[in-house]
């Protein structure tokens, strides 16, 4: 139950990109096409899951002093594996994403959840936390990739969206366009979170009032 709740929390109220401002760099720089956003999101999710599992299982073996260094080596090794797999499976998209695949290893989301969460928690909550953070990142990347590609290039996953060869707003593919879209999404999620918390507060107040009336 707790695991399930922490999973949804990571996607909406504690979204790593929009609320915690971690991993903004790849979220803006890569998402000019939906494919590369999807690829980088999947890569980050895989690295997050595969590197937090050994860390959480070996936390009694790794001494406190060597913790940070060994975590970095684990993350670097898994990122290399992911990069090799991706460059053999999806060579063109990997070429497009470029240096951001190696930069998964220094992504704030990965470092924070491996160093902070996986070190101090048992295996199952760690997996749920990693899955939630990775999915939150993946959803934002995919959403931004879809919006920016369809508005800026007139295509979606490489296929044309509109009947004719037209583009609505080429600015969306540029870097400032990505920042603008990210800002709008962050404002939207902040608004949604505020509405949810207000509703919960109202419900609690109503509950207290009802109790007072009934008593």
């Amino acid at each position, binding site marked *: 139950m707790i695991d399930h709740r922490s999973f949804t929390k990571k996607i909406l109220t504690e979204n790593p990109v929009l609320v915690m401002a971690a991993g903004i*760099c790849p979220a803006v720089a890569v998402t000019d096409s939906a494919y590369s956003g999807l690829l980088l999101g999947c890569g980050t999710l895989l690295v997050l899951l595969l590197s937090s599992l050994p860390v959480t299982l070996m936390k009694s073996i790794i001494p406190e002093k060597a913790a940070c260094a060994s975590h970095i080596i684990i993350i670097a090794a898994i990122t290399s594996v992911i990069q090799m797999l991706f460059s053999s499976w999806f060579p063109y998209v990997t070429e497009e994403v470029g240096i951001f695949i*190696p930069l998964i290893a220094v992504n704030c989301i990965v470092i924070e959840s491996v160093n902070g969460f996986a070190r101090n928690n048992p295996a199952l909550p760690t997996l749920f936390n990693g899955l939630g953070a990775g999915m939150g990142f993946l959803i934002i990347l995919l959403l931004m990739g879809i919006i920016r590609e369809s508005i800026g290039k007139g295509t979606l996953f490489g296929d044309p969206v509109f009947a004719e060869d037209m583009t609505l707003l080429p600015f969306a593919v540029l870097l400032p366009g990505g920042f603008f879209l990210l800002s709008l999404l962050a404002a939207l999620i902040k608004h949604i979170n505020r509405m949810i918390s207000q509703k919960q507060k109202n419900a609690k107040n109503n509950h207290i009032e009802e109790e007072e009336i009934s008593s």
Partner: protein
Amino acid sequence: MKEIIIIMMTMVLVDNIVLAKALGACSLIKLPASAGRSAAMGLAVTFAMIGATLFTWPLDRYWLVPFDLEYFRIFLFIPLIFLAGYLVTAVLKKAAHSYWESMGCTSSLISANCAVAGIAFINTDQGFTYFEAVYCALGAGLGFTGAMLIFAGMKYKIDKANNIPEAFRGIPAYIMALAILSMVFIGFSQAAAALIS
């Protein structure tokens, strides 16, 4: 000499690592608005970039490329980059301990910085010589520091403004400001590119 000046001008003005490549945007948004703190952070990141390039460039050129071991790049570079960040933090702590403590900068903010790692990976692909690579790292660090100082001023103004809509307060407003700064910079960098070429 001329090439070095062109590389540095390019890294600071045209290919600015934050505003034209979006590397290291997280640390711009996360750090509080203070010019002193931004300058210290920029300085530390510059040193870390130079340190990382000093280690990684020779390793790549004289060991990985001749023996066709490029697939080891990530596995070897990431720990070296973290080592460089750790060393810079340790030296700065020794040199100016009280100042550094008051800054509240942690080593993870420098080591886990996309800009530091990004410059180490970018440098290997560009066919630079050793000195050019180091100057490229220096230029990138200066560009990062400049962007950081400009953004600290913008953040100060945003924090003081009281007519921002409720939903945009905090991080959304910072990202919007970064978008505007980046837009300004793209226009400016095209003029600068025309000037250099």
